[in-house]
């Protein structure tokens, strides 16, 4: 790809390319930066109508106010659902992915077809709602965990990765007298750390971010998760729509940072596992 000598047009292209990409970076940095800066700003800095990009002050008051407010209950609910849900999801997905990766598995092809079919055809919201209701899950934390405990996408990522593990490893373990469970735990899992890390993050984030399942299945406001109360805070007191008590933006942004917190903390650590792991299975189902 590297031409020995760049033509003038090529040089111009490189400059424009770098400028374009820098502009794209700004589109992603500015809104997130503004949230962070505003969340650390004093009331006086948000009373004017500035879109804060340069911090004028630094205070933790907003956070201490949020931590002692009702939002903490919702934060704890979110955390509980995300942790319990992720553990459950991994316990279902990993063994299933491993089993589906074994070529000699009985009924493997039919199972895979039945699984992929659910990706293309969705029964819709209402039949799903009725099932959850008939299971008696309405208004329980189970309603926001069990119905979404498995993601076909994550399952296929794991299955495809485990298919790529050399069969010779598994066969020699079988000869040594390992059963399938021992093979999974002792041989396959240690080889799959990257993919497990990526899928764990995907699950955690998907639970953390759930919104519509919560408002659909939960009526008791004490069981609301952070996303639901954040939506109420940001959209129902939106000044352009009128109504609602006025909450200063710095406080709102502190709640929002709570809403993005797990992602901001975990993502940098897991990110390096993504591309390699994700590519193997992610796209090609």
């Amino acid at each position: 790809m590297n031409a020995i000598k760049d033509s003038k047009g090529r040089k111009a292209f490189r400059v424009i390319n770098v400028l374009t990409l820098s502009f794209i970076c700004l589109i992603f940095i500015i809104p997130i930066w503004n949230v962070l800066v505003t969340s650390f700003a004093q009331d006086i800095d948000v009373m004017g109508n500035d879109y804060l990009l340069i911090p004028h002050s630094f205070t933790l008051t907003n956070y201490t106010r949020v931590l002692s407010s009702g939002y903490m209950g919702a934060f704890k609910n979110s955390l509980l659902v995300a942790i319990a849900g992720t553990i459950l999801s991994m316990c279902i997905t990993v063994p299933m992915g491993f089993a589906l990766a074994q070529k000699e598995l009985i009924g493997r092809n039919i199972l895979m077809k039945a699984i992929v079919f659910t990706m293309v055809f969705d029964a819709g919201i209402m039949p799903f709602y009725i099932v959850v209701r008939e299971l008696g899950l309405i208004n329980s934390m189970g309603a926001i965990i069990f119905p979404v405990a498995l993601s076909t996408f994550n399952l296929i990522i794991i299955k495809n990765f485990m298919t790529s593990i050399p069969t010779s490893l598994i066969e020699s373990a079988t000869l040594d007298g390992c059963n399938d469970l021992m093979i999974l735990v002792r041989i396959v899992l240690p080889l799959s750390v990257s993919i497990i890390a990526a899928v764990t993050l995907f699950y955690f984030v998907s639970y953390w971010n759930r919104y519509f399942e919560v408002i659909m299945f939960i009526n008791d406001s004490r069981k609301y998760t952070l996303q639901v109360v954040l939506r109420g805070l940001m959209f129902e007191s939106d000044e352009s729509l009128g109504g609602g008590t006025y909450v200063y933006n710095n406080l709102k942004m502190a709640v929002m940072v709570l809403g993005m917190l797990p992602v901001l903390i975990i993502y940098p650590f897991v990110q390096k596992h993504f591309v390699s792991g994700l590519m193997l299975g992610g796209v090609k189902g």
Partner: protein
Amino acid sequence: MTKKPKAIRIKPPLTTRISKQRYLLIMLAPGIIWYVLFKYVPLMGLSLSFTDYGFRSKVSFVGLENFQRLLTSTIFWNAFRNTLIISLANIVFYFPAPLIVALLINELRSTKAKRFIQFLIYIPYFFSWVVVGSIFVNLLSPSSGLVNNIITKFGGDPIYFMASANHFRPVLISSYIWRQMGYGAVIYVASLTTVQPELYEAATIDGAGHWGKLFYVTLPGIRSTIVTMLLLNLSHVLLIFEQVLVMYNAAVYDVADVLQTYVFREGVLSGDIGYSIAVGMFTSIISLILVLSTNKISSRFLDEPIL
């Protein structure tokens, strides 16, 4: 998917195979139960669209009445129209965006810069729609938002983006692009690395310029990724829901109400379950047709079909 001739093997009887694979079957069981309960039982629930389930304690069969109602409902047609407009805009504006950005990233020389920008634009994909919606409310706020600050600096009047029928759909599309683009771009960038360098060398020898390489080497080299992304996109484009549910408000119902939010209101909030299942089924079937026909058409350009 390989078509190698298989060695003929005599299979042991099924019972022996089951007992040999008992651990595998145990591992499968929770997942299978989940699929049956939450994916296949709901499919059976679709038959309720032929009933008046929801209002009376006794459910009775009403034939195609729900579907007749749907075809004559102006709210349904409005939601249908909005869904189509938003979906079309989505395909036109969102679908090419990650590919273009990935091609630009691929032209960068510094590996560090490549990594950094992928790291950055992938972040919003992990934010909830509530967070992304809130970020946009903030950015577009008539009083303190960046966009309106710029507009008023140049002497314009602030625009109430979130409450304006003319601006709400563009807001939906731009926030969709903002959240989802990084995901697609990262996948395309990875896919671009699989294009064999010899092909570029051969193209250079044949006298291909940069555009020539793009159209004859790069794009054909990643065509199966492009088609997969298109299918993935099409499979949920008509089912757009949570984003709208989070971001819309009474002022923009007319332009923002989509099929799924209509289903949600009729079914969960008003309790008209039989009818809302009919609307949902209508959406799912159109979505299925869209995906399958695209798959059929695209399989002509690919070595093997995606689905």
